[in-house]
């Protein structure tokens, strides 16, 4: 059986940073990624990051990904397995995976789960028509492969993802007919919303999609206004001719491996669903199993990278590697606190409070 000191599952922003931090301290690291390239969502993020300079503010996601990839490939302690999907974590600590049509088994001393999140879906009539995409899929088509999803888009969701992807669609020459959100307020940053509004795209709050229509693919959508109890108001229906409906209605943590490993799980609405309980160094209730990034609670890439730092340092420290780990951990936790200090961080702090509270858990 192959062994390693640290296994990092997932090569997005959190996993890449976790692998770098653990390996730089001397631990032997295996990093797995199911895609054929590292970077996770960073490879489709063309916008400049906010936050502090330390967290690459002002850089575009695509460039941050390249920078991290450079650090990974320069470190001989790291083995990268792309096109490798982790399938299961067993009671004896063995992790199984599939790569290049082969079944692999690995026994790590520490495991860091950085599997990210998946997009939420929305119930409405005909929501299975071709032409209805998750916002991540639209970004992949446009920004990775240079292919437009269609000609005229209805964006559902006025959070940061809905706003940013709308702007990216416009940069790719695609018309955005409208952005709708069921909430009475725009959820994303006003700086993004203003850019879109200046370009003449209406952002309709307190609006929902009743149904999509079309024979073989989307030809249009029926919208309606919502009252203060979130119910559609009769007589307010609008018919919008679009060939793409893009859903930007939130993300859920990908926690299958945490469930299987036997982590204590808790439902935290602020984090997008069930997440493993963890201590401040991101170790779950299963000793030696850490979680970082969206898998531990949906947030954003800057925080995911800092969490990767925390998990990577903590895993290395527990194996006896590294100097001044306590200082490095303190600095990382302080950076997290700073990132979450703005109004956007309130939701995360509320979620964390619930997660750290004692009380009933899912299992």
């Amino acid at each position, binding site marked *: 059986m192959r062994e390693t000191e640290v296994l990092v599952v997932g090569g997005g922003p959190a996993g890449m940073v976790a692998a770098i931090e653990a390996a730089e301290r001397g631990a032997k690291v295996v990093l797995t990624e199911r895609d054929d390239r590292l970077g996770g969502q960073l490879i489709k993020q063309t916008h400049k990051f906010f936050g502090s300079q330390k967290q690459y503010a002002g850089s575009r996601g695509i460039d941050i990904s390249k920078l991290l990839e450079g650090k990974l490939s320069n470190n001989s302690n790291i083995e990268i397995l792309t096109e490798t999907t982790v399938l299961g974590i067993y009671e004896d600590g063995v992790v199984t995976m599939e790569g290049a049509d082969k079944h692999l088994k690995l026994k790590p001393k520490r495991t860091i789960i950085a599997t990210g999140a998946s997009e939420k879906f929305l119930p409405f009539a005909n929501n*299975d*028509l071709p032409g209805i995409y998750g916002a991540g899929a639209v970004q992949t088509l446009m920004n990775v492969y240079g292919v437009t999803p269609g000609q005229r888009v209805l964006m559902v969701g006025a959070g940061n993802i809905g706003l940013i992807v709308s702007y990216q669609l416009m940069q790719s020459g695609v018309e955005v007919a409208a952005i709708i959100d069921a909430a009475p307020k725009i959820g994303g940053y006003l700086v993004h919303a203003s850019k879109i509004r200046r370009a003449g795209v209406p952002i309709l709050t307190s609006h929902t999609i009743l149904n999509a229509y079309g024979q*073989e693919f989307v030809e249009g959508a029926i919208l309606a206004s919502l009252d203060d109890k979130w119910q559609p108001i009769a007589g307010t229906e609008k018919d919008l001719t679009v060939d793409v409906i893009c859903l930007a209605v939130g993300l859920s943590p990908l926690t299958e491996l945490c469930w299987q490993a036997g982590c204590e799980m808790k439902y935290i609405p602020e984090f997008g669903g069930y997440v493993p309980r963890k201590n401040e160094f991101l170790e779950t209730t299963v000793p030696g199993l850490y979680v970082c990034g969206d898998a531990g609670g949906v947030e954003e890439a800057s925080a995911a990278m800092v969490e990767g730092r925390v998990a990577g340092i903590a895993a290395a420290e527990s194996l006896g590697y590294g100097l001044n780990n306590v200082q490095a951990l303190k600095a990382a936790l302080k950076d997290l606190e700073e990132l979450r200090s703005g109004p956007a961080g309130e939701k995360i702090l509320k979620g964390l409070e619930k997660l750290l509270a004692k009380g009933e858990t899912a299992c």
Partner: protein
Amino acid sequence: MRIENHPILSFNRGKTLSFFFNGEEIKGYSGETIAAALHAAGIKVLSHSHEFHHPRGLFCAIGNCSSCLMVVDGQPNVRVCVEKLREGMRVETQKGKGCLAQ
């Protein structure tokens, strides 16, 4: 449609490849997924649902949702949103659950 001018990105497309969609020859580029090449050719209906035979297209583009299963070189249930294009590939719309080649 393919994006030719972009304010931030430049697309370094690989070499041109030919593949077949339901017998019809289509061009794509190496390095891209089957789904991206089909989309660029305006093809959005990739499969049909098992029970009601509703048309299905791409939804997640990262191999999570199984909305894009097609028959590729005789093998059913291939997630074309993550499967890379190869020269001469035969890609077909899948009907039903698909059968493994004998």
